């Protein structure tokens, strides 16, 4: 592993924390620094995304890296030295640090990606949200999951705004009044 890559790891870790979300399939965000992006493309050592399969027998994990239709499933092997294998479960958002051994990718460390709140944003719990919605308090509730999930089951009064739609339309799909309380939810912190 060359020096450049080693320098890059803390940056990836930091950006990964910033980019954290619930069950989010998101590639390691390295777009901020062009030099970093280049290095990662040469020899990526971190996969970030949703774990789509774990096989104990084949000692392999597949992880969906990238967004939506462009998401690619990557197959990574693990061994007895891999850290955090017991945390790897289908459906969770994770970060897999790996190394190449010959042509095969081996995971060295598997970490859960916990949801991190952006600065200035606070959490709301079930009891309070239930109170506010039943009181019909002024509130704009947003379901950030893919539309299929919203269609099957959503909270009372929730608006369906999947993340890609918000990215595209921005304020056009949110209330005009920027001081109105907004509450976002998805499929839970994983």
């Amino acid at each position, binding site marked *: 592993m060359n020096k450049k890559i080693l320098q890059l790891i803390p940056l990836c870790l930091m950006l990964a924390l910033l980019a954290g*979300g*619930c069950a989010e399939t998101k590639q390691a965000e390295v777009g901020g620094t062009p030099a970093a992006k280049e290095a990662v493309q040469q020899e990526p050592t971190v996969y970030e995304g949703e774990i789509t399969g774990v096989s104990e*027998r*084949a000692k392999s994990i*597949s992880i969906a890296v990238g967004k939506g239709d462009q998401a690619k499933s990557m*197959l990574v092997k693990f061994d007895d030295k891999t850290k955090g294998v017991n945390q790897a479960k289908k459906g969770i958002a994770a970060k897999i640090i790996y190394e190449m051994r010959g042509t095969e990718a081996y995971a060295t460390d598997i970490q859960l990606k916990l949801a991190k709140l952006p600065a200035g944003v606070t959490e709301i719990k079930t009891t309070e949200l239930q109170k506010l919605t039943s009181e019909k308090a002024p509130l704009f509730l947003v*379901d*950030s999951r893919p539309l299929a999930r*919203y269609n099957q089951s959503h*909270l009372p009064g929730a608006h369906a705004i999947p993340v890609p739609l918000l990215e595209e339309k921005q304020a056009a799909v949110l209330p005009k009044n920027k001081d109105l309380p907004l509450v976002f939810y998805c499929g839970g912190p994983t």
Partner: protein
Amino acid sequence: MSTASAGLAKKIGYTNIRVYLDGEPAWSKANLPTYSTNEFIKNGNVVLIDIRPSKKAIAGRIKGAYSVPYDTLENTLDDVPRNAPLVLYGDKEVMDAVVAVRDQEFNFVSLVEGGYQGWVKSGGEIEKGPIFNTEIKWVRKLGKGEVSVADFRKAVAGEEKNTVVVDARTKEEVAELGIFKNTINIPLDEIPSRMNELPKDKKIYVHCSTGARADMAYSELVKHGFDVKFLLLNIKDAECDCEIIKP
């Protein structure tokens, strides 16, 4: 997803943003109501249940609904697969019914917004009169990349000449349990290094013991441009009924 959206809203200039991190699963678990959209109820692969007394259902019900009065709910749902999305509607007792079916380990349970009246008000289709469909039928639709059991059976019987079947189990499993006819064994972990053994101009069906590894092998092969499907089935299931070459 919710945190990413919250960050974006912050950037656009919204001042009062919160995130319900526990999300929809926690809301359901607290036995609070969740709703399906009318579109999903009408066109989705759902089991729609009218839990009101049958008298009311006969007088008028949502088109396609099964009439299962609340007091008969428990026994009627015994044979319904637990991954079937249930959509219930009724009167006051409907939340009790939701709790009851969630207790029966149905994973996807939701309500019609506003119940029967809400449906009528929103212009949804209804039907009236005697009810003939009493036995609940629900069949899971094939997911992305899945091969039907029927097609898979044909392939291993050698009736689909343009198809290659791959068994993604380990060599040890094959040695112990045998292998289907017309099948080659490439364990999941060897797929990346051995995919050059597979043809790109033929269909490939992958199976394993339950479908989990086959799904992973499918993703890997599809990424490399193969025309591939996988079998999501426990191969011990009687439904498979494929001939095995015993070791």
